[in-house]
């Protein structure tokens, strides 16, 4: 992927716009070689290469650390606080705190040996060979090549899912693929694209050609069906129950891939409805199934999947929140690219917006900005708890020309209400309350960017802040764990998680409507 065309920008990052001087960056141990503009946040560069930022790039977790092999990076306060003297002297830095200023060679800790980006206790049985883990997202594809003896990540590859041209959300893709011809196109497209990603790995590391033993793929139910070439018709209408939710196992040849004839390809199973193996992988990564206390995993994407459970019982659902958190259906909504408002706070009683790429012209607002803006506006009384903007002309100006309309706030209410209602219903099904939940993992990129305080203020997450943790790409992490986990254990895990269909849930509508409003400040302060 071309780093010059980076779309995602860290909100702290300075822009490299107008500056053409290129900086040379080398990432080891994968041997990635890049030229980037000066001032490009290292976060952006590494993110594009699959590095996770466990605390959301806030300098709180040291999960993103890199060791400077050539060049220099100045010391920040966070590094003084989080790293030991020894680590600092050895050249370790937190990549989320820096921008590219001079040529650099960086050793990325996450590519060293840890399977999970956090300090997890995941233990694996080493064996010979090479494995590849793939997260088939509806928007983005991510693949990692893993050395199975050491658990080391040998290479990372990301690409935009080409299927997106046949529909942005999964439902539109189902619409395109219900008929035979449409399905052929989508199936061929995804298989070809993933093959290309795998071949790219094998090209750079020819030895891997013979050593490749395992490929594990995860994705939501629609991606699962399209990769395995299953009938989409059952997913096009109620009751959305497909007979093909199981795991798929086969050889590369069965997929028309002429690579590693002896390798085993596995697509992990789905749960039901639209909750797929990406969420199953999320459970593996966050180890909900091994926890004594209740753990919650929330994917704040368009389908809004939620799992809550512990070693005894687990429930999941999808809440269909819609794409508001991704900036879609919001008048001036956009992705977190240059010119997007990504943060809003209150200063001297006024809304103060921060734009991605400092100094660039404001163009729109992304999901984290939207949640912040409404949270602050609630505190200032510019938006009522009913969602109403009381003052004519019923708009919320941020930085000219960017503003939120009354309809934008309504969209946010629909989206956040759906997630909050989903959590409440799962807890209800488990006979538990919010207090019983020990930890909440926010999966996905948006989970990394959203401010937990703002999410709480708007009633999206009604859980104490210290229990909420951004968890990065849990689907990919789980796919890697699955490389070391046998089929039986995974199928067993899938069976242990029961799917709660919200459409036919008697209380959904009442709870949803209740959760559509914003907490009043009194209610909020109590919690």
């Amino acid at each position: 992927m071309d780093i010059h065309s980076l779309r995602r920008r860290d909100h702290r990052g300075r822009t490299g716009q107008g500056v053409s001087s290129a900086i040379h960056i080398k990432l080891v141990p994968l041997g990635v070689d890049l030229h980037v503009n000066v001032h490009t946040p290292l976060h952006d560069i590494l993110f594009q290469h699959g590095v996770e930022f466990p605390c959301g790039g806030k300098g709180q977790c040291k999960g993103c650390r890199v060791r400077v092999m050539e060049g220099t990076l100045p010391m920040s306060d966070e590094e003084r606080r989080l790293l030991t003297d020894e680590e600092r002297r050895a050249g370790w830095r937190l990549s989320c705190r820096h921008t590219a200023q001079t040529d650099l060679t960086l050793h990325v800790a996450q590519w060293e040996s840890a399977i999970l980006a956090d300090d997890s206790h995941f233990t694996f049985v080493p064996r010979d060979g090479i494995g590849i883990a793939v997260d088939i997202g509806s928007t983005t594809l991510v693949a990692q090549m893993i050395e199975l003896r050491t658990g080391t990540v040998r290479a990372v590859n990301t690409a935009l899912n080409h299927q997106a041209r046949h529909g942005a959300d999964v439902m539109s893709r189902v619409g395109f693929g219900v008929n035979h011809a449409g399905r052929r196109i989508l199936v061929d497209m995804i298989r070809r694209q993933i093959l290309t990603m795998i071949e790219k790995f094998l090209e750079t590391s020819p030895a891997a050609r013979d050593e490749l033993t395992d490929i594990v793929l995860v994705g939501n139910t629609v991606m699962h069906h399209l990769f395995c070439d299953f009938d989409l018709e059952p997913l096009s209408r109620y009751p959305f129950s497909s007979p093909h939710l199981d795991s798929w196992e086969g050889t590369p040849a069965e997929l028309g891939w002429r690579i590693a004839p002896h390798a085993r390809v596995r697509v992990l199973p789905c749960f039901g409805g639209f909750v797929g193996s990406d969420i199953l992988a999320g459970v593996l990564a966050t180890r909900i199934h091994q926890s004594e206390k209740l753990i919650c995993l929330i994917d704040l994407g368009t389908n809004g999947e939620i799992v809550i459970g512990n070693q005894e019982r687990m429930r999941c659902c999808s809440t269909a929140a819609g794409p508001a958190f991704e900036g879609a259906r919001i008048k001036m909504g956009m992705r977190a690219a240059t010119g997007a408002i990504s943060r809003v706070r209150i200063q001297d009683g006024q809304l103060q917006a921060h734009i991605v790429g400092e100094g660039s012209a404001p163009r729109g607002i992304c999901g984290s900005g939207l949640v912040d803006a409404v949270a602050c506006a609630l505190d200032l009384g510019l938006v009522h708890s009913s969602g109403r903007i009381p003052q004519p002309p019923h708009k919320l100006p941020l930085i000219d020309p960017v503003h939120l309309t009354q309809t934008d706030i309504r969209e946010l209410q629909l989206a956040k209400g759906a997630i909050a209602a989903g959590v409440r219903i799962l807890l209800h099904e488990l006979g538990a309350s919010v207090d019983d939940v020990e930890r909440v993992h926010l999966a996905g990129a948006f989970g990394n960017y959203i401010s937990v305080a703002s999410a709480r203020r708007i009633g999206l997450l009604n859980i104490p802040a210290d229990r909420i943790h951004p968890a990065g790409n849990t689907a990919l992490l789980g796919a890697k764990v699955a490389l070391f986990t046998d089929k039986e254990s995974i199928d067993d895990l899938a069976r242990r998680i029961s799917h709660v269909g919200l459409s036919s849930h008697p209380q959904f509508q009442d709870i949803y409507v209740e959760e559509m409003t914003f907490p009043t400040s009194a209610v909020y302060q109590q919690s």
Partner: protein
Amino acid sequence: MDDYKQLYEAILNGNFKIAKEVTQQALDKNADPQMLVQEYMIPAMNEVGRRYEANEYFVPELLIAARAMKASLELIRPLLVQQGAQPAGRVVIGTVKGDLHDIGKNLVAAMLEGSGFEVIDLGVDVSPEKFTTAARDNNASLVAMSALLTTTMGSMKSTIEALKSGGVRDKVKIMIGGAPITQRYADEIGADGYSSNANGAVALARKFVGIQ
């Protein structure tokens, strides 16, 4: 004549208990049920619809207003039937086959009811046959369909075809709605009307039965 402005206010503010109490008191004093509907209930629901359309009210406010309206209407309805009062029109409404989204459909149904229509709600996942039979058996003047999924929009077309082959198409006006629906789609499948919101649905229905 007594002033039942309180009923109007109770519906507008979604106060279910007061709406019920005021209605009961009025009926105890032999107030004319049709007068209650025409002069208080319908104007209140009109105002609720206007506020919703203007984005002042949202789903929660509209829903609690509808609940208050229904509480009152439940007390009044038996008397209306006794008097042989005619509804503005009879509407058969439902979410189409394959789709279970019903919040929008429920709002439309409530607004129609609060505007003096008799509403036969077939619920969700309603097959073309069920729409056809219900329209025929109830002698409906309107069929209203809701769909929220791009994959179930097609059921609207099949329903219109079923109404045709069932011989009821010419006896009813058909209106459709739901987030993915557009006027263009309505024209394409030969529906008589489309609206993007519940208040617009009432305006359409009124137009179809010839009320201003």
